[in-house]
């Protein structure tokens, strides 16, 4: 039962990764692509990690995976803002 749930979560994770990559290709400008990257990939990684943690049934490893997700989440959100800011300031100064 947990394995079914884990499988579903892992597949949902892959789905969001795919969506993010497609967004990166389809969206027309840098800022819109950043939306796709941060929102879809962070959700994708989160679902995948919850799925893996359920599958592993080891709370200690699960917490470490959660730490990795938090690190990616915080770093990803910060990077996205910094890249957007970098681009925006350059636009304004040219």
């Amino acid at each position: 039962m947990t394995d079914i749930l884990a499988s579903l979560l892992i597949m949902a994770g892959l789905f969001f990764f795919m969506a993010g990559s497609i967004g990166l290709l389809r969206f027309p400008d840098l800022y819109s692509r950043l939306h796709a990257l941060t929102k879809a990939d962070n959700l994708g990684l989160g679902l995948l990690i919850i799925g893996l943690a359920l599958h592993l049934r080891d709370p200690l490893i699960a917490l470490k995976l959660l730490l990795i997700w938090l690190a990616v989440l915080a770093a990803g959100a910060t990077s996205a803002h910094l890249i957007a800011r970098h681009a925006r300031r350059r636009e304004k100064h040219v």
Partner: protein
Amino acid sequence: MAQRISMPAGILARTVLFAALWWLITQGRADAWLVGVPAVALAVFASERLSSGALPRLSLIGLFGFLSLFLRESLSGGIDVARRTLEPKLRIAPGFSSYRLRIQDPRARVLLINCIGLLPGTLAADLDGDFAELHLLDADNNPDPQIRQLEQAIARLFNVPLETNDD
């Protein structure tokens, strides 16, 4: 203003946090503390040196409210952007807007800026004084209510009041 934790209590809080992280990274191995004690001490020292001031006293109920809002909103943010990318006809109308932050605490502001990027359709592209410049996936939607909701949750988390003079 927000309630602050005194400095010794702040060092204690950091030590507990980093010791817990060390325990987690090393997966609870007891013999790791030989390296762990100096590593945690160095991390506490660095964190204290880099800190902008005393730690705020976080509210536990506020944390619960913030986390549930955060998880709900990042889920809907991901679903929203996935829907937009996968639809045969790209239905986005990108644009910029400006949002006046009502929260004053610098830490709370940074948290808000970072979280805005995970909400559906919004991304903070710059922060200039009290104004955050937002990039919107769909400029026809007014993003302010959902950000205000997040801002309120962060204010409760940090135990700080929101300015409420104008809107």
